[in-house]
């Protein structure tokens, strides 16, 4: 009988193309992974499959027209993009919007945050094999999109804000519809946490996976829930309040370990805090107009006036005709906002014409995703969907 000796197996490095059309990438991402067995030794993300040239387009569209482009960036929470861009333009031009406008903007941003986080947690769960949590989250996201449809007229491409206000006011009785959905959200967040938090498989798949340290998070420019999961107490809504966020009472969700599980916990807690903000916003909603300053040449007049009076029609054309309308000051403005993914900033440079000279988006997805190759190194291939899901990469925002 011959004795079998254990010899180390000689393995070749396997190069695996992950994407561009892998179901767990939720968009078009490509990662070239070098595998040693099932362990990833090196990952090189390749992006640019959805590069649409939004920034170049922005140099040809005026301030109100570009809002329709911002919908297409982070298509899971388009209202946050609308608001962020409007804030940047208003800061550049120097417009103060009414209190009611700002409260409605806060309400819409927080509803978007709930929808975005619920979908993100659901997607993360479905990529790891937990279908039920996904269905709970997705159903509610539909309900929230119905709310958007009531207010803005569309579900996805909302284009709700204008420079200096909102497209239209929220209808009567809107608060009842919102409160009904918020109650459901409250229940469903508890349901999802009951399903997942103590689930053995969920914990094994998410705990100690993709750990980011605090220093790395700052060095890589990580922001939003990902940064807060590493213990950085930084929320732009609290630390640099915009849109009257300082008048709302809410807490900032923090976790300490910085792994996938903590990012999930931070997102779930943020949903709860967003519910609080929405309720306060509805309670304290002030009366008033949502379009201010229909004399500066920036904001479009209300649609009733355009259709029913000659002055309104003339004014509408004054704003929209290419050789009339806006004359912003020469200068530049950068406004950071807290979008569901992190710091979403718009940087507008103006040379005094009606179209901006340069529009730059500071995309949270791109900058958060740049740490991915560091996170996946040394993990198994099957951890890749977990890490991608917890980063919440939105391809439209990644490439613009």
């Amino acid at each position: 009988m011959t004795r079998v000796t254990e010899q180390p197996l000689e393995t070749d490095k396997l190069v695996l193309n992950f994407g561009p059309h892998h179901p767990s990438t939720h968009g078009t991402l490509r990662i070239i992974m070098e595998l040693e067995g099932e362990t990833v030794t090196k990952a090189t993300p390749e992006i640019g499959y959805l590069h649409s040239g939004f920034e170049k387009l922005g140099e040809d569209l005026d301030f109100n027209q570009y809002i329709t482009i911002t919908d297409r960036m982070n298509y899971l929470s388009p209202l946050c993009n609308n608001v962020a861009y409007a804030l940047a333009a208003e800061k550049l031009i120097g417009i103060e919007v009414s209190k009611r406008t700002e409260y409605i903007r806060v309400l819409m941003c927080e509803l978007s945050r709930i929808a975005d986080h619920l979908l993100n947690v659901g997607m993360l769960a479905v990529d790891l094999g937990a279908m039920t949590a996904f269905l709970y989250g997705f159903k509610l996201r539909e309900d929230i999109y119905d709310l958007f449809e009531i207010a803005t007229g569309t579900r996805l491409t909302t284009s709700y804000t204008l420079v200096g206000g909102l497209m239209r006011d929220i209808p009567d009785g809107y608060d009842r519809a919102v409160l009904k959905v918020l109650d459901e959200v409250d229940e469903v967040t508890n349901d999802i946490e009951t399903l997942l938090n103590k689930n053995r498989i969920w914990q094994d798949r998410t705990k100690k996976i993709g750990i980011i340290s605090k220093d790395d998070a700052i060095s890589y420019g990580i922001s939003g829930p990902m940064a807060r999961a590493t213990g950085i107490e930084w929320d732009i809504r609290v630390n640099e309040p915009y849109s009257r966020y300082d008048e709302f009472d809410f807490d900032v969700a923090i976790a300490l370990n910085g792994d996938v599980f903590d990012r999930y916990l931070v997102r779930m807690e943020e949903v709860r805090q967003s519910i609080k903000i929405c309720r306060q916003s509805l309670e304290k909603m002030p009366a008033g107009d949502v379009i201010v300053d229909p004399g500066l040449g920036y904001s479009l007049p209300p649609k009733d006036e355009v259709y029913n009076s000659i002055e309104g029609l003339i004014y509408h054309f004054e704003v929209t005709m290419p050789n009339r309308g806006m004359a912003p000051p020469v200068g530049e403005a950068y406004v950071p906002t807290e979008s569901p993914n992190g710091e979403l900033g718009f940087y507008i440079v103006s040379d005094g014409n009606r179209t901006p000279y340069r529009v730059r988006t500071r995309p949270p997805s791109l900058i958060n995703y740049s740490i991915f190759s560091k996170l996946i190194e040394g993990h198994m291939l099957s951890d890749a969907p977990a890490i991608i899901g917890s980063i919440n990469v939105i391809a439209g925002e990644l490439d613009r």
Partner: protein
Amino acid sequence: MPTATILSKIKERLPGAVLDITEFAGEHILHVQGQDILKVLTELKDDGFNFLADLTAIDNLTLGGFERFAVSYHLLSHKTAERVTVKAYISEEKPSLPSVESLWKTADWQEREVFDLYGIKFEGHPNLIRIMNPDDFEGYPLRKDYPRLGRKERDDFPVVDRPIQKRKRPE
């Protein structure tokens, strides 16, 4: 220390590097020479601006400015919640400036994006290749002299030859 004081101190310490300090809409902007950007940002990082929020470029072709290109850095201090914009100017003939990847890792991808869309080179960057556009793309699309509709349609797609047997026509 308020931001205005920090900026004027940097101007004292690096007299040749700082071109101007301006303010617009409540934001401080520090205009510097492109070659000195690494020194200036190191100073600012030591003064508490620990977070590089954004890095982008502006083509000053028709806007006017100190030079043709400006690379702008948006810094944030987590301690004081203050922000400052630093604009580094570089000329059209030699569009290059030192990379700040050694200070913040986030500059890696963002500098690649500026290189891809503006053709600005960052000295000392570990992997300066295009990020959005394909490697064989010609031109720099966000420059002001690049037409919005593009230069031409791409016609050099690789053609795969498959030996297809042509059927003979029945007579």
